[in-house]
Structure formats: C-alpha cells, structure tokens
C-alpha cells in the first residue's frame, strides 16, 4: 500500500508522527460506555455457551435448557420480562472473553450466565465480576468458589470433586480396600479423581494406582491393562464424557473386566451420549452424579417429558444445568423485585433454597456454591426400552468441602496430578 520509496526512506519520520498523534490522543479520554441500565420492566441477560467447535454438543444442550426454563415460565420473573442475548464462545477463552465484552459493553446486559469449560468460565467470570456485574456459572472448576472466590460469582452446580466425595466413602463402606483411579490428565480429571481419592483414603482405603490418560485417547488398552495388573477391589473412572468414555468402556469390556472388577463412574461418564452408543453393555453401570434423568421426582420427569417432546432426546447434564441456572436467576429476581444490582443480586441468589429441583433439594454455602444431594445411579431400562440412569441411593447435603469443613479443606492446595488428597 505504501509506495516503495516511502517505505524505505522515511520510517523515522512516520514513526514520529504516529507517536505524536498517539500521545496527543491518549491525553484525553473518550466517553465511557455505561453498563447496566434498566429499560422499563425488562432485564437483559447474557448467555454464553459453545455452540460451535469441539464442545458444540454441550453448548447446544445448555442453550436449549436455558430457553426451556424461560419458555415454561413465560419469560418473566419478579414482575419483569427477561430478555436473553446468546453468544457462542467456540470453547476458546479468548473468544469467550471478547463475547462477554460484547454482551456487557454493547448489549449492556445486567448479568452473564455460562460458559461451561473451566478456562472459558474463569476468563468470563473474571471480566464480568471485574465490571461489577453478577455472573452465574455451572462449570466444575473447584477454585472458582474456593481459593478464587469472588462475591459476584455464583455457581449453580457442583465442583468437579464434590460429587465424588460420597463415591470414595461409599466404596470403602462396601468393603473395598484397594482402588485404581482412571482420569483424564487435566484439571477436570485431577479434581474428579481428587474427590474420590481423598475420601477413599480418609476412610482407610488404599490407592494402588492412579492412571492419567490424555484427553482424546484413541486406544485405552494400555490404561485398562495397568488397572487390571494392579487387581484392585474397585476402579473409579472420572470422565468428561464423549468419545473418551465410550472408547474406555469398549476396552474395559473387551478385556473382560466388566464382571470381574466393580467399576464406579463420576457425573459425566455414563451420560446419554454414552448410553446411546454403548447400549445393552451399559446396563447396571453405577455412577455418582447430581443429575439423574430417571430420578422419581415431578421436577425431573416434567422436565424430561417437555424436553423430549421438543428435542426428541433425553436431556443431558448440560441442558439440566443451564435450566437450573435460569431457575436460580428467576428465584433471585423474585426476591429482589426484578432488580439486578451487583453483589446484592448474588446475595439474594445465594439465599435461594429449593425443596426440589432437577438436582434435588438445594441451598448455597457462603462461598456461593451448591450444597445439595449426590445420587448413586444405575443404568436401567425405561418402560419404552430407552436406557437411562435411575437413583439407587441419595447422599443429601453434600458440600464442596466434603466432610472436612471449609477452613481445613482450603488449607490444602487445589487437586492436581501431584496432589489428590492422599
């Protein structure tokens, strides 16, 4: 674009001009956009989830769940109409952050909900809270409501380790004394296994081996072989679902371990995607989770029925989770009379207590995380032949701090590959 001669001869002069103009311009600030602003009985909410990219399936389910709540409730709560602006984060924190900026600065939303992946959630929550706006999250990343607690961030969901504390205790109570854990080698896996391992060891059990596999492993036979070699009483799998869960289970059954070593899954191992793919072989699988689509409760069954009618499939954890976020936001709006004002709104939301919901009876603790039931589920057949998970046992009021209590729990570092609470 620049003519040849200019390019060579006058860089210094051009540079000076640029610098001078920049300094001159920087001296006076342009007008700030003002965030917030209520428009006659309407609140504007932002909703970020990944509807394209490698986790598009989760983000699409989330959007459906969120929309379904407002549809069922006439798009209103606390006397105000609720309007949602949707954005796609593609599973990338840089994109998520920029989309959050658009929602806050351009759309002037008063609250942001989502996204789902830990890194995108941290990026969005940090920015939105930094702007003084409340945000609700459903990601599992432990520290969001622990060591990185922020009064403007509420998690309507469970930490990655939370639902696995009862799994560790239960396994020990069943008479299992040795265990092998298999988890993906990144934060979600470390925290999932951390929950099981810390509780199992605390009860008196012994971890024979912790197997970490890379996310997106194609062939699980080496990992399954390692588990078999250790010959433990029980194996815990903390999976993020998807192809990893399916491929692992194919290896597991292929090695003939299905009836030899008891297998316990986490929240996201035997989900609907898994059940549709694995079929018959999955019958009887046990998991520890907070979302059970087959739980005998009007809240759950009405939701499943409505969702199936609209989308022709049983809702996933992600659809349920987003529905729950919407419900808690709505309940909080009822408490504040339709006003959303920073930390006050999150304080109101934290007071929300549900006697039954998709997750069961819920309250929140003082660092903005759910205290609620964890279910031991078993894969069974519904009347129409579809596979789903039904509740076998309920562990009520499980806290993100396990049985330890907040202070003691926060003294040790967040779960990682090097520290799983042993």
């Amino acid at each position: 674009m620049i003519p040849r001669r200019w390019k060579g001869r006058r860089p210094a002069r051009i540079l000076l001009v640029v610098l001078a103009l920049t300094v001159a311009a920087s001296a006076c600030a342009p007008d700030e956009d003002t965030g917030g602003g209520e428009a006659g009985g309407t609140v504007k909410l932002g909703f970020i989830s990944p509807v394209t990219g490698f986790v598009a399936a989760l983000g699409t389910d989330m959007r459906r769940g969120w929309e379904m709540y407002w549809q069922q409730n006439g798009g209103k709560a606390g006397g105000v109409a609720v309007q949602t602006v949707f954005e796609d984060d593609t599973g990338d924190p840089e994109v998520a952050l920029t989309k959050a900026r658009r929602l806050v600065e351009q759309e002037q939303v008063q609250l942001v909900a989502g996204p789902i992946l830990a890194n995108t959630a941290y990026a969005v929550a940090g920015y939105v809270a930094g702007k003084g706006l409340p945000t609700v999250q459903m990601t599992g990343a432990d520290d969001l409501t622990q060591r990185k607690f922020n009064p403007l961030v509420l998690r309507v969901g469970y930490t990655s380790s939370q639902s696995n504390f009862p799994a560790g205790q239960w396994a020990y109570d069943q008479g299992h004394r040795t265990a092998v854990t298999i988890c993906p080698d990144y934060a979600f896996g470390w925290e999932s296994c951390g929950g099981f391992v810390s509780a199992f060891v605390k009860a008196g059990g012994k971890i024979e081996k912790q197997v970490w596999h890379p996310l997106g492993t194609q062939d699980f036979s080496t990992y399954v072989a390692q588990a078999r070699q250790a010959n433990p009483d029980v194996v815990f799998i903390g999976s993020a679902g998807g192809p990893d869960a399916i491929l692992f289970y194919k290896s597991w059954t292929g090695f003939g371990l299905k009836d030899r070593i008891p297998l316990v899954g986490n929240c996201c191992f035997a989900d609907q995607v898994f059940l549709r793919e694995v079929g018959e072989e999955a019958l009887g699988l046990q998991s520890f989770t907070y979302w059970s689509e087959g739980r005998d409760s009007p809240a759950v069954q009405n939701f499943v029925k409505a969702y199936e009618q609209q989308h022709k499939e049983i809702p996933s954890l992600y659809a349920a989770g987003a529905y729950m976020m919407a419900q808690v936001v709505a309940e909080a709006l009822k408490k504040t009379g339709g006003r959303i004002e920073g930390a006050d709104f999150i304080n109101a939301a934290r007071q929300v207590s549900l006697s039954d919901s998709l997750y069961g009876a819920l309250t929140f603790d003082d660092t903005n995380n759910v205290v609620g039931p964890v279910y031991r589920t078993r894969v069974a057949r519904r009347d129409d032949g579809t596979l789903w998970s039904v509740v076998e046992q309920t562990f009520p009021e499980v806290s993100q701090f396990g049985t330890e209590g907040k202070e003691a729990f926060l003294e040790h570092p967040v779960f990682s590959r090097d520290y799983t609470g042993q």
Partner: protein
Amino acid sequence: MSTARWAGATALGAGIAGVVAAPYVLPSYVVSLLTLVFIAALLAGSVNLLAGLAGLVSIGHAGIAAAGAYGVAWATVHGLGLPAALGVAAALTLAVSVVYALTTMRTTGIVFLMITLALGITVFGLALKLSSITGGQNGLTGIRRPAVVGEWWQFYFFTAAVYGVCLLALAALSRSPFGLLLRGIRESESRMTSLGYSVTAVKFVAILVSGVFAGCAGVLLAWNSEFMSPSAASFSRSALAVVMVIVGGTGTLLGPLAGAGIVVAAEYWLSSYVERWPTVLGVVLIAVVLYAPRGIVGGLEDLAGQRLHRPRKEGS
C-alpha cells in the same frame, strides 16, 4: 510515480487518522475488536516474515506467542514488577524461539511446517501439564496490565503504537540486506550456499527475529485478556495466523493486517449472526486462493500496478 506517492501518503494519513479517531467515534466493544486485530496482525506478521521472505511456513507460531504471554502472565501473578515481567517474557520467548530455530533451521517446505506443528503442540501440552506454573487447563487469573494502559482506550492506543513500530521494523527488515538474503534462500538454497552464505545460520537468526515479534504479540495478548490458558498455544490459533497471512497476502507488508481484520470479523462479529462462521471463513480462503493467489493486499497491489502502468498492458 508521484501519483502513486501522493496516493500512498493520503492512504497512510487516512489510516493513521482512522486509527487515532476510532476510540472517539466507535463503541468500546468495537475498539476492543480493533485491539484484537492489531494483536493478531502482529502474530501473523511474524509468520509472514518467515513465509513471505524465506518461504518457510510455520504452523506453530502461537506456541512462541504463548511463551511470551505465559512469561508476562506468570511474572505478574507472582508480583514481579513491569521490567522484571517483561524480562521473564523476553527470556522465555527467546528460549522457545531458540528451540524452534535449532530444530527447524536445516529444514524447508513441508518438513519445516511439520516440525513447527509438532513444536506448537508440544508448547500446548506443556502449558496444559505444568499446572503448578501455568495453572493447567484452568489457566492463570489475576493478571493486570500496567496501570498506564489500564483503560481499554489506553490499551488500544498502546497496541496500535506497538503494532506501528513493529510494522516499520518489518518493513525495514524486508528491505535490508538480511531480507535479501532470506529471499535468496527462498529462491535457491544451493546458490546461496555456493555464494558463501551459511543458510542454516541465516535461518536460525530469521526464526529468532520472527520469534521476537510473536513474543510481543503474546505479551499484548496476555495484557488484553488479563487471563492466560493453554488455548492461546492451540493449533487453531497457529493455523488462524497462517490463514490471515494467506488471505491478506503472503509477503506483503499489510497483508497480515487485512487478514487479521477478516478473521477477527468472522470470529467475533459474523459468529453472532451465523453459527457456521468457520464455513464462511473457509469459503473466503478458497476464493482468495483461487482468484487472488497473492492475497487481498497482493491482489490490490497488482490492480493498482496495472492502473498506473495502463499504457503498456502486460500479458497476464
């Protein structure tokens, strides 16, 4: 020739005026997108330096940028001051660039591409696994950019200025004897060797220099998002940088900027309306490769050249 000179001067003046005026007339969100364009263009520019001059296409440059970004992020989170933080970033960028350079300086073409791809994925893996340093998948939070550029518009001006300086440096570099050396290597390595140049050494230096620009982009990236996670080093980031170069025009000075503008517009603006925006971007890429092999800026230069030399029509 003076017509071209005036046209160029006018375009440059209009460009600078536009960049300076942007925060005063555009909403803050759009300005934050422009900031992203400059950062992306700087990374693409570092790829373009190698691809355009030496014909070495790197598909792992986000790894180098991530090194700079993690350096400054880690140092800031651990309470180091600005000079120390920039020092850490520079050291880390240099270290990673040296690894890139040492492993690729004897290669060319597809082999160069594959090794940089592997290196990029390695950096991504390290960022994911060394969680005690990088925070793993959860990333590093609590990064704050220096107070002088704390406001969004200040940071925009800062980014634009850094990009301007880097652009001039890239222009000077491409016209320097060193730039000629790289062109020579692209045309024929054996000839350069027989002329007495050490091709390996020249490539080594070129990759380091390119790494410096990528590192600058990384630091700006970390300051822009005030958050750092492994996805900054991901394959898709590296690949998008190459897409920007190809769409904008390989070997042109302003090509990476044009390419960055298009990719950022697709990623952030188009995606709000079209769910399948990557498809649209793919179609644009194919169209450019088919109809303007020298990219958008290259194509425009050709057009302008044709118009100026209208009387003597060169055979196409």
